[in-house]
C-alpha cells in the first residue's frame, strides 16, 4: 500500500468510527496514531504524547477557558439580563421588538463570551419567557435565540477564532478584529430578518403596547454600561494594542468578577456552576484539539494534501471555484458534524488549498466561522437547536428548525457579501496591524 492509500483508508476508518458514535476527538486520535504507526512506527508514540502535552500547555490557548469563564460569570451574575433589558426597553415597543432585542442582547453578550452555547443558553433563559408572555410565534422566538447564540463564535472573543488561530498559526488579534464588522452586519441582518417576518406575518409577534418611559430607558442603559465598559476595555484593549488577547481575557474575567462582586450578584454556588460549565467547554475543546494535532502529522505523512493540490492544479479550477467548492462542502458537513469537528477535520486539507489559491487566511477564517455558525443551527445535529429545545421543551424540533430558516439565509447573505467584499473582514485588522502582503 502506498502512503496515499493508507491515508485514504485512514479517512474511511475515521468516518466509520464517527458514524459509530465514537467521540470525534478519540476517533481522530485513534486514526492519527494507527496511521502514523503504519507509515512511521517510531514517530507514533512520541506524536501521541507530545501533542497531548503540547496542546495542554499551549500558552495561547489559555485565553479560551478565560474568555468562556468571563461569559459564564457574566451570565451567572445577571449582566446579560441588563443587556437584554436595555435592548428590550429601547426596541420592545416595535413589532417584533422583543425578538430584535434578543438579537441585540445576544450580540452584546457574544462580545463577552467566546461560546455560542453560553450565548444561546443565557439569552434563551432571559428572552424566551418574555416572548412567550407576549405570545410570540414559537418558531420565531426559538429560532431567534438559536441564531442569536451563534453570534458568540463570530463576534470577538470567539472560541472559533481561537481554535482557528491555533490550527493555522494566524494572529488571534487579527482574527478577532476581522470578526467585528461581519458580526455587526450579521446582527443587523438578523434584525432585518425579524422585521421582514413580522411585516409579512404580523401575528408572529403581537405588538406590545407597553411604553417604557424615557427615564426608564436611560436607567436600563446605565445598568448595561457595566457590561459595555468591560467589552470596551477587553476588545478595545486588544484593538489599541494595550493588551495581548490573553491579557485581555484575564483582565476581562477579573473585571466581570469585580463588577459582579460590587453588585453583590454572584454567590459561591453561581461561581461553582460557572467554573464547572467552563471546565466542560475546556475539556471538550482541548480534547478535540489534541485529536486534531495527533491526526495532522498522519495526514501530512500520507501526502493527501499534496495530492489534493495536484488534483486541483490538474483540473484547471480557478481560485473562486475552489473557494466555492470548499464552502459548499463545509456547509454540507455542517448539517451532520459539529462545528469544531469540522474546523479541526478539514483545516489540514483546506489550508493549503486556500493558501495556494492566494486568499487571505484571516478573511477565510471569518468565512469558515460563519459556515460553522450555519452548522450550529442546521438540521439534524445543530447544537444550538438542542440547547434551545432544552430551554423550550414544549416546542417541537420541526418548529424550531422552521424558525431558523430566515436566520440561516441571513448568514448565507453575509457569506456572499464577504466573498464579494473581503475588505469587510480585513479593514479592521489591516488598520490595526497593517495590511498583509
Amino acid at each position: 500500500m502506498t502512503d496515499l492509500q493508507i491515508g485514504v483508508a485512514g479517512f474511511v476508518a475515521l468516518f466509520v468510527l464517527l458514524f459509530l458514535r465514537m467521540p470525534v476527538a478519540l476517533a481522530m486520535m485513534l486514526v492519527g496514531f494507527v496511521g502514523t504507526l503504519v507509515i512511521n512506527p517510531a514517530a507514533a508514540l512520541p506524536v501521541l504524547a507530545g501533542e497531548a502535552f503540547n496542546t495542554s500547555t499551549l500558552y495561547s490557548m489559555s485565553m479560551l477557558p478565560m474568555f468562556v469563564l468571563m461569559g459564564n460569570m457574566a451570565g451567572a451574575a445577571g449582566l446579560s439580563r441588563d443587556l437584554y433589558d436595555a435592548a428590550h426597553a429601547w426596541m420592545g415597543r416595535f413589532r417584533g421588538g422583543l425578538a430584535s432585542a434578543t438579537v441585540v442582547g445576544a450580540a452584546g453578550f457574544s462580545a463577552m463570551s467566546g461560546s455560542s452555547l453560553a450565548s444561546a443558553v443565557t439569552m434563551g433563559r432571559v428572552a424566551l419567557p418574555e416572548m412567550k408572555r407576549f405570545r410570540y410565534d414559537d418558531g420565531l422566538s426559538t429560532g431567534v435565540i438559536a441564531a442569536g447564540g451563534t453570534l458568540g463564535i463570530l463576534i470577538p472573543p470567539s472560541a472559533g477564532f481561537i481554535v482557528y488561530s491555533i490550527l493555522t498559526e494566524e494572529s488571534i488579534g487579527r482574527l478577532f478584529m476581522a470578526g467585528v464588522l461581519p458580526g455587526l452586519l450579521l446582527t443587523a441582518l438578523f434584525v432585518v430578518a425579524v422585521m421582514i417576518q413580522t411585516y409579512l406575518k404580523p401575528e408572529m409577534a403581537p405588538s406590545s403596547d407597553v411604553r417604557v418611559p424615557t427615564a426608564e430607558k436611560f436607567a436600563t442603559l446605565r445598568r448595561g454600561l457595566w457590561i459595555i465598559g468591560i467589552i470596551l476595555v477587553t476588545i478595545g484593549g486588544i484593538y489599541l494594542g494595550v493588551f495581548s488577547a490573553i491579557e485581555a481575557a484575564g483582565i476581562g474575567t477579573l473585571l466581570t468578577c469585580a463588577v459582579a462582586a460590587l453588585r453583590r450578584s454572584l454567590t459561591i454556588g453561581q461561581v461553582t456552576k460557572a467554573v464547572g460549565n467552563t471546565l466542560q467547554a475546556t475539556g471538550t475543546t482541548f480534547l478535540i484539539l489534541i485529536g486534531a494535532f495527533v491526526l495532522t502529522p498522519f495526514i501530512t505523512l500520507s501526502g493527501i494534501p499534496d495530492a489534493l493540490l495536484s488534483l486541483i492544479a490538474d483540473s484547471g479550477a480557478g481560485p473562486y471555484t475552489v473557494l466555492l467548492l470548499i464552502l459548499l462542502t463545509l456547509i454540507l458537513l455542517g448539517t451532520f458534524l459539529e462545528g469544531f469537528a469540522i474546523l479541526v477535520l478539514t483545516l489540514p486539507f483546506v489550508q493549503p488549498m486556500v493558501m495556494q489559491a492566494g486568499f487571505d487566511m484571516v478573511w477565510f477564517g471569518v468565512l469558515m466561522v460563519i459556515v460553522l455558525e450555519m452548522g450550529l443551527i442546521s438540521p439534524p445535529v445543530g447544537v444550538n437547536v438542542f440547547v434551545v429545545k432544552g430551554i423550550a421543551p414544549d416546542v417541537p424540533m420541526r418548529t424550531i428548525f422552521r424558525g431558523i430558516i430566515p436566520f440561516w439565509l441571513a448568514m448565507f447573505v453575509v457569506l456572499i457579501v464577504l466573498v464579494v467584499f473581503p475588505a469587510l473582514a480585513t479593514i479592521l485588522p489591516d488598520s490595526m496591524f497593517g495590511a498583509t502582503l
Partner: protein
Amino acid sequence: MITPVPGRFGRIVARAITLWACVGGVSLLLLVLLTGIGVFFRYVLNTPINGLRDISQLLLLICVSGAIPHAARRGAHVAVDLLTLTRHPGARRTVSILIGASSVALLGVVLVALARQGSCGFRCGHFTPDLVIPFWPMYLALGIGFFLYVLQIIARWSADEPGSDADPQGLR
C-alpha cells in the same frame, strides 16, 4: 448534564473526577488571577514578572487535565449523532462495547506514551524555559486526567444494562 452512574465503583469514580475537576477549577481561577497580576506588574509597575508564562502553562495543563474527565462525566465530548444504527438492542450494545473498548485501549496507549515521554526528564530537555520546572509532574497531572477518563468509560460500561439506552462510552 450529569447522568449518575450507579454502583459503588461509579460513585468512587464520580467523586475522584469531581475532586480532580475542583483542582482544575482552582487552577483556572489562579490562571485568571495570575494573568491579571502579570498585567498589573507589567503596565502599572513596569516590572514584568519572570517565569509567569511557565506557571501559566502549568496551571493551564492542570485545568485541562481536570476538565477532560469532567466533560466526559457530563457527556459533553462531541460525537456525531447522525445514525441510529439499529433499534436492535443487541447490535447497539455490541457497537457500544466495540467503541468503548477501542476508546479504553487508545487512552491506555496515551497513558503509556505520556509515562514514557514524561520519564525522559532533563536529558530530553523536558523543562520550562524560564523557571526550569521539570515537565514530569505535568505529564503525571495530564496522565491523571486521562486515567480518570478511562475509569469514567469503564464505570459507565459496567453500569450499562444489556440493551439499555445508556451509552457505555460514557461520553454523550
